[in-house]
C-alpha cells in the first residue's frame, strides 16, 4: 500500500502547511519593526528579530514614545484602543472561564432535569432550548443592547457573559442531553427507590458518568466565548470590559494600522485557546463522540 502511505503523508503535509503558514506569517511580522514590515518586497524571515513589539503590546505609551524619538510621525498610527490590550486578555479569560463554569453547572442541571425528571413539557422545552441556537445573533443585537443599557450594564463584563451564555447553552444542553440518554438509568432508578433525592443522585451517580461530555462542552463554550467578536464589540466601550478580539478587530479596521503590534498582540492572544486545545484534545474527541454522534 505504498501509494496510499505516500498519499497520506502528502495530505498530512498539506494540512500542516494550511495550519502553520498563516501562524508563521503572523509570528514573522510580529518580530519585525515597522520599517522592516513596510519594505518591498517583504521579508520572509525577520532580518533582525526583536521582541520589541511584544513589550509594546503591554505598554503602548512606550511604543508611542519610541516612534516619536525615531522621528516617525507614525506614532499617530497607533489606535488608542490598543492600550487596553493587557486588560483585555484578562477580560477575555474571565468571561471565558465564567461562561465555561456556568455552562458546566447549569447545563448539567438542565440536561439532568430534562431527561431524568419525568414531567410534562420536557420535549417542547428541549426544542425551545435548541431553537435558541438558531436565532441569528444579529437579530438580538439591538434589543439586547437596549435592554443592557437600560439596566445600566453597558460596558460591563456581565453583559458579555450573559450573551455568551445564551449562545453556548443550547449546544451544551443538546450534547449533554444526548449523552445522558445513552446512559442506562438502572443505578439511578435504584437509588431513587431507596429514597435518594434528585440532587444526590445527580452528584453521586450521574455526574461522574458524564465526565467526558462535560469537559467537552466546557472547552467548547470557552472557545466560543473567547473568540466572539460581534457582541463584545457592541457591548463594551472601555478598558474595563473590552475583550481581546475587540482590541485586535478594532485595531485592524481603522484607517491607521500598526501591523507589527497587531501581529504580536495576535500571537499573545491566541495562546490561551491553543493551550487548551493541545491539553484537552482527548476530551474533545471523546466527549463529542458520545454526545453528538450517537
Amino acid at each position, binding site marked *: 500500500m505504498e501509494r496510499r502511505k505516500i498519499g497520506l503523508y502528502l495530505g498530512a503535509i498539506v494540512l500542516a502547511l494550511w495550519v502553520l503558514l*498563516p501562524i508563521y506569517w503572523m509570528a514573522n511580522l510580529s518580530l519585525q519593526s515597522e520599517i522592516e514590515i513596510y519594505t518591498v518586497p517583504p521579508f520572509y524571515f525577520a532580518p533582525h528579530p526583536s521582541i520589541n513589539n511584544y513589550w509594546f503590546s503591554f505598554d503602548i505609551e512606550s511604543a508611542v514614545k519610541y516612534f516619536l524619538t525615531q522621528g516617525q510621525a507614525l506614532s499617530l498610527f497607533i489606535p488608542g484602543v490598543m492600550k487596553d490590550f493587557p486588560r483585555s486578555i484578562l477580560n477575555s479569560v474571565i468571561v471565558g472561564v465564567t461562561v465555561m463554569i456556568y455552562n458546566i453547572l447549569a447545563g448539567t442541571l438542565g440536561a439532568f*432535569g430534562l431527561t431524568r425528571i419525568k414531567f410534562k413539557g420536557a420535549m417542547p422545552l428541549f426544542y425551545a432550548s435548541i431553537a435558541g441556537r438558531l436565532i441569528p445573533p444579529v437579530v*438580538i443585537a*439591538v434589543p439586547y443592547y437596549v435592554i443592557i443599557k437600560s439596566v445600566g450594564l453597558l460596558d460591563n463584563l456581565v453583559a458579555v457573559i450573559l450573551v455568551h451564555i445564551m449562545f453556548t*447553552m443550547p449546544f451544551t444542553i443538546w450534547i449533554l442531553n444526548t449523552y445522558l440518554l445513552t446512559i442506562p438509568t438502572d443505578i439511578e432508578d435504584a437509588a431513587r427507590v431507596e429514597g435518594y433525592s434528585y440532587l444526590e443522585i445527580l452528584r453521586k451517580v450521574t455526574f461522574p458518568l458524564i465526565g467526558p461530555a462535560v469537559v467537552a462542552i466546557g472547552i467548547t463554550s470557552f472557545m466560543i466565548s473567547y473568540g466572539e467578536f460581534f457582541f463584545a464589540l457592541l457591548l463594551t466601550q472601555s478598558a474595563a470590559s473590552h475583550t481581546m478580539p475587540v482590541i485586535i478587530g478594532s485595531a485592524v479596521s481603522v484607517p491607521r494600522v500598526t501591523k507589527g503590534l497587531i501581529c504580536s498582540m495576535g500571537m499573545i492572544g491566541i495562546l490561551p485557546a491553543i493551550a487548551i486545545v493541545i491539553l484537552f484534545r482527548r476530551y474533545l474527541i471523546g466527549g463529542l463522540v458520545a454526545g453528538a454522534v450517537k
Partner: protein
Amino acid sequence: MLALCLVPALTPLFLFGFYPLAYAFYLSITFYNLKTNIPPHFIGFGNYAALVSDSAFLISTTSTLIFAALTIPLIALLSLGEALLLSNNFKGVKALQVLALVPWGIPVVVSGSIYRFIFDLNFGVFNDIAMKLGLAHEYISWLSVDWIAMLIVALAYLWVQTPLPTLLLLAGIQSIPKELHEAASIDGAKPLAHFRMVTFNWLKPVLFIVLVYASLMALWCFDPIYVITMGGPANFTKLITFFTYERMFYFLDFGQAGAVTILILGITVLLIYLYFRALRLGALRLRV
C-alpha cells in the same frame, strides 16, 4: 428540584433570546431613524418596502447567497477530507490531530487580520510570490477584485471554521463499528464502494449536522468582513449581517435594521425546516 434544574439553564435563553426577538419584530414595523427629527412611529411594511427598493440590500442578499453556496460545500468537503485523513493510523497522526484543531482556538478577527496582511497590495507576501511565480507582472490589489475579495474572506472564515466539523466527522468515523467494515470486506467491496456503503452511510447524520451548522454560520458571518474588507469592493462582500450592522450603527436606521434581522430570522427558520424535510431524519437527532 425541577425548578433548580431548569431555571439556570433556560432563563438566559428565554430572557435574552426570545424576548429580544419580540423587540426586533417591533423595530421592523417601526420607522425608527435617529438621523431625522421624525419621531418613531408605526409604518407596517414600510421598512421592508424601502429595503427591497435599495440596491445595496439586493447586492447584499446576492452576496450572502454566493458566499453560502461557496462555503457550505467547501466546509463539507474539506472537513470530510481532513477527517478521513486524520482517521488513519500513521506516524504523527496524533500530533496532526492537535494541529488541525489549532485554528479553531484562534478568533476569526485574528485570522482575518493575518490574511489581510498577506494579501496587502504593496507589502503583502502573496503579491511577492505571485510576481516570483510569474502569475502577475505587477502588484495587484486582490482585495479590490470582487470575487477574489470574497474568496479571501471565505479563506479566513474557513480556516477557523473547518476544525469543528472535522472533529465531529472524525468522531463519527471512529465510532463506526468494526463489524460493518469487516462485513464489507468480506463482500469484497472495492475501496470507493466500501467508502460509500460503510463510511458515508454511517456519517450521514453527522454530515447533516455539519451542513446545517455551515449554512447557519455562512448566513451569520460577520467577523472576517469587519477586519478584511468592511463590505468590500462595491459592496460585494457586504454580507447580510454586516449590512444590518451598518444600517444600525452607521445609518442609525433601527427600523430597517430590525426588518433585515426579521428577514434573516425567517430565512434561518426556513433553512432549518427545509433541511429536516429534505433528509427526513426529523426526530432522529432531536429525540429526547
